[in-house]
């Protein structure tokens, strides 16, 4: 170094600064690959499918004739499956997270549960489908029904709900708990009256992201043997074949949006591909707006809360 002239040192600095610039450019380009792919995907589907998006498309059943086909049974199926998923995954997930954060003693049992939740998040979704096929469809005898599908997706998003709830609970300062205990509240009173209400936005974020993932999941539902061509709706409460009950629809055969799209994509005719593009567009808009909502809630949360 000592025998370098000022000019040489300047040249060295310039050279290294140039690397900075080069890398920053490469970074932006890498980011652009992701952005452009998404734009291409979206634009392509709009060009191919947008003209199919009409009122008829939403109220027609799938059909052998591409131009008459619609997604009625698919979106009704998706909605009902999501209902089952939400009703089962949210209470169990939130309760599990509350236990792990507020109640769990530091012992091997807690360690096992924690490691297990982390690992479950990494299990491929199709494995949940196999579990559901063996357990719900055959062992419990639920068949290839809305109930089986909803429970399968509930298992799938359980880790997402647990992790999000734990994070939300963890961000509540200890002072809140100490205040409640100081006034004589029990652990459950503290949890139900303070911890849970304050963590609602965080839980909501996790639940929405989980449901957005569940609504786009195809593999586990195909694995339990969902049919790809359904031209009827599940029975409304009290209208099915006897015995008519309020929950007959739980055991009805069904299809969901991603499966309908898969069915249309795997047909050779281009007309059905346009239907697939339209269904895909609906699906993407649905999941993206759910994700955007979750991101928005989290953003608001970060801005507003000052303990």
């Amino acid at each position: 170094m000592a025998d370098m002239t000022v000019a040489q040192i300047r040249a060295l600095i310039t050279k290294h600064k140039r690397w900075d610039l080069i890398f920053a450019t490469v970074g932006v380009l890498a980011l652009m690959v992701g952005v452009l792919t998404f734009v291409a995907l979206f634009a392509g589907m709009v060009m191919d499918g947008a003209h199919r998006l009409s009122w008829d498309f939403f109220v027609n059943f799938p059909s052998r004739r591409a131009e008459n086909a619609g997604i009625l049974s698919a979106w009704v199926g998706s909605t009902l499956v999501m209902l089952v998923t939400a009703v089962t995954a949210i209470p169990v997930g939130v309760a599990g997270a509350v236990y792990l954060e507020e109640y769990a003693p530091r012992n091997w049992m807690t360690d096992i549960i924690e490691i297990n939740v982390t690992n479950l998040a990494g299990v491929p979704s199709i494995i949940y489908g196999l579990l559901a096929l063996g357990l719900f469809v055959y062992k419990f005898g639920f068949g290839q029904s809305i109930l089986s599908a909803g429970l399968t997706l509930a298992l799938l998003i359980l880790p997402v709900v647990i992790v999000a709830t734990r994070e939300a609970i963890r961000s509540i300062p200890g002072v809140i708990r100490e205040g409640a205990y100081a006034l004589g509240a029990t652990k459950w009173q503290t949890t139900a009256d303070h911890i849970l209400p304050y963590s609602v936005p965080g839980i909501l974020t996790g639940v929405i992201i989980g449901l957005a993932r569940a609504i786009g999941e195809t593999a586990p539902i195909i694995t339990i043997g969902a049919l790809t061509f359904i031209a009827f709706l599940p029975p409304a409460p009290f209208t099915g074949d006897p015995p008519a009950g309020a929950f007959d629809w739980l055991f009805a055969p069904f299809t969901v949006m991603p499966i309908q799209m898969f069915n249309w994509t795997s047909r050779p005719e281009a007309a059905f591909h346009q239907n697939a593009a339209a269904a895909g567009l609906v699906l993407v808009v649905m999941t993206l707006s759910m994700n955007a909502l979750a991101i928005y809630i989290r953003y608001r949360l970060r801005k507003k809360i000052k303990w």
Partner: protein
Amino acid sequence: MSSVAPTNTLNPLADHTVSARLAKKTTRHFRERVIEGVLFLCASFSVAITVGIVVILVSESYQLFQHISLFEFLTDNQWTPLFDDAHYGIMVLLSGTVISSLVALAVAIPLGTMIAIYLSEFAPFAVRETAKPFLELLGGVPTIVYGYFALLYVTPALQFFFPGLPGFNLLSAGLVMGIMIIPYVSSVSEDAMRSVPMAMREGSYAMGATRFQTAVRVVTPAAFSGIAAAYILGISRAVGETMIVAVAAGMQPNLTWNPAEPAATITAYIVQVALGDLPHGSIGYQTIFAAGLTLMLLTLFFNVVGHVMKRRYRQVY
């Protein structure tokens, strides 16, 4: 007199309410215990899921291995369980899984790492705050949509450059899968890089290092355990990804190491069988559980490797 008066003023109801309050406390205590029990059950439900997965996969696979030998399963070079001349060589499906995953990782790891370094060390605040949610959205697109994209847009585009490319191939499925995995790799790596303490960067800058030198020689090594975890996550995603390969790679079992050929992955085979209707308890039905078990062991292996690497290279600041 002075000894009685203060007790009464302090606690005038002390004499006749003590037992009632204690009684209330007992029910309260009981209720607390019940609630704790219920919460514990909910938490241990996740363990029940894991146990359920293992029991189902192992028991169904065990029944399959009553009919065929494990040796045959691991070494046969054909996979035709549904034909009269049935062969059960899992290598055939593994090759499809491995090749499509390798293509995906060849896209996702370099791009994801570069995006992570850029967002963590170079990007201005506004760019980072816009790019992160956008990447999350990219990860939220349903995989069937990516499958559609791979089959109907990427494959024709690739055929323009390589005219001989078949309509179903591992290459386009792998490329799109790589794009899908980028957000997972980049966001976990970026979190790891951002948790490297500022003092380390300041030290590096004080020695005259540029941003690039700091990023590559200081921050990346310090965040290595987190970056490794991101790669492992990417690998398990790629191995377990189903719909993209089922749609775009074809479902023909094909023992090949050439990404330009159609082939079935483990996941695509499960989908293919589930789409037909095989009777419950038949050998074909059991093969999908054996395939699932293989997949499960594969992801488990990567998770264990990731765990070990995390332990080993964790930096304590």
